[in-house]
């Protein structure tokens, strides 16, 4: 049985989302902005997903995907130079999105309210290290590439490490240019999956532990 109940949400979005509108004199151009996201936000995504999985169980994984996509759009609009703690900021944005959605919906499963209330402070804790730098990042990417199917891997390597054009790759591998694109798209998706879902059992154990502590608090 699903208990649906109208409740005035007591929690407010914690609005620390600095500078909602970007100024024309943006200090970072798009490429630099993506690099900033790649270094500061992307490495935390797996952790945030895990946190959603363990804490917000009344939402499906597909809903989590939506939240994450929305969060990227939201983070893009803020000024990276103003964000001292990107990881905490990521958590704050996701939590705010959850609250906003709950407010819009008006009717929210009771359990979710408790879940949202319980999402405070997590962003202040230091998280497990997700930032793969330099050689380590290269190592991680190589491991992911190694798991790609042969053809996909060849196309990906020619593009990423060799800088071949779509035409060159097609000629060299004897496949159509359309296939080159398709293979690159699939490689991109698989790398996305691997980079954002990479978690050891230890991390999961840690998360369920904090959840237990949190449950015990209530």
């Amino acid at each position: 049985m699903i208990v649906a109940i109208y409740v005035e949400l007591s929690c407010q979005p914690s609005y620390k989302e600095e500078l909602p509108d970007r100024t024309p004199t943006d200090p970072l151009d798009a490429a630099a902005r993506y690099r900033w996201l790649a270094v500061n936000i992307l490495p935390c995504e797996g952790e945030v997903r895990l946190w959603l999985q363990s804490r917000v169980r009344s939402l499906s994984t597909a809903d989590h995907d939506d939240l994450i996509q929305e969060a990227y759009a939201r983070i893009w609009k803020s000024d990276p130079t103003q964000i001292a703690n990107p990881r905490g900021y990521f958590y704050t944005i996701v939590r705010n999105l959850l609250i906003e959605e709950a407010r819009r919906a008006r009717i929210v499963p009771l359990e979710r309210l408790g879940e949202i209330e319980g999402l405070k402070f997590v962003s202040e804790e230091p998280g497990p290290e997700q930032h793969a730098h330099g050689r380590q990042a290269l190592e991680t990417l190589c491991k992911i590439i190694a798991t790609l199917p042969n053809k996909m891997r060849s196309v990906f390597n020619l593009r990423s490490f060799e800088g071949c054009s779509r035409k060159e790759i097609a000629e060299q591998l004897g496949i159509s240019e359309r296939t080159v694109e398709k293979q690159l798209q699939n490689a991109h998706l698989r790398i996305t999956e691997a980079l954002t879902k990479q978690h050891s059992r230890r991390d999961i154990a840690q998360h369920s532990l904090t959840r237990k502590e949190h449950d015990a608090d209530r």
Partner: protein
Amino acid sequence: MTRTGKRIEQEAAGWVVKTQLGTLTPEEQTDFQQWLATSSRHQGAWIRANTIQASIESVAALGAGVTPDAARPRISFQWRLPLAAAATLLLAVASILIYQGLGDRYTSGVGELRQVALTDGSTMLLNTATRAIVKMKPDSRDIQLDRGEALFEVAHDVSRPFLVHAGNITVKAIGTAFTVKMNDALAGEKIEVLVTQGTVEVMSPSGTARITADHHASVQPEAPPKVEAIERGEAERQLAWRSGRLEFDGQPLLEAVKEINRHSRKHVIVTDPVMAQRPIVGSFRAIDSESFAHIAAATLNAKVILDGDVIRIEPK
């Protein structure tokens, strides 16, 4: 909401690949603009896909050194694929060698903090400008601290002592929390060990000492470790860097400046010997040497001179 998130993710990846290949036709360009304007979810997915692309590109750039590049004679097409495969293999092999033989290397830049989860369940938090190499062996856990400062929270494992090597000393722990700090051991500066939990053993060529919680040891080259008890608050103060701050409680300006300069690229310089010994009290953002200089100057009735890449504090 069903599988739309995944579908949007796929579409975004498609657009990123096309944009990156530079193969968008004018019609596709229009389609893309429409797609992007549909919803903030589409925009978010596009931004996320580009972030992944940026990540791939920056990592691939590191691998460029081992793949044939423009500087070398162009290699015929039929050789490219085997070479790309060989390059990937080489990278994989190199990674394995690094992993097994040389240990995992972790570094933090100036002003950066890095939390590292070690495979044995311990954690290591690197303070600014620090380099550590981790070797997990069957009978021991070895960390080589090359420079800087790190806080270790050690998972209990009697069969595998946790050893931190810094300069000519070794700190041995089983299950505890402690920091090891070395500024410049080569220049003959002291190495400091601060224990917040449990007990560690400090082994130096001139003697061994046991340090319990809330004790601090400093090891000068060629001298036995000097151990002293510290107050709780003092340990907290010394560990303020964990939250990106530096706290001083009456330390001489010179010492505070040295600490601030570790965390910031913009260095503070104090030349006046009298002022260098004046005490500093306060909590400062570790990476903001300029604010530090202004506050310190205000309390010491001095002036701040911004001089290119350095900040001078001088008597008025």
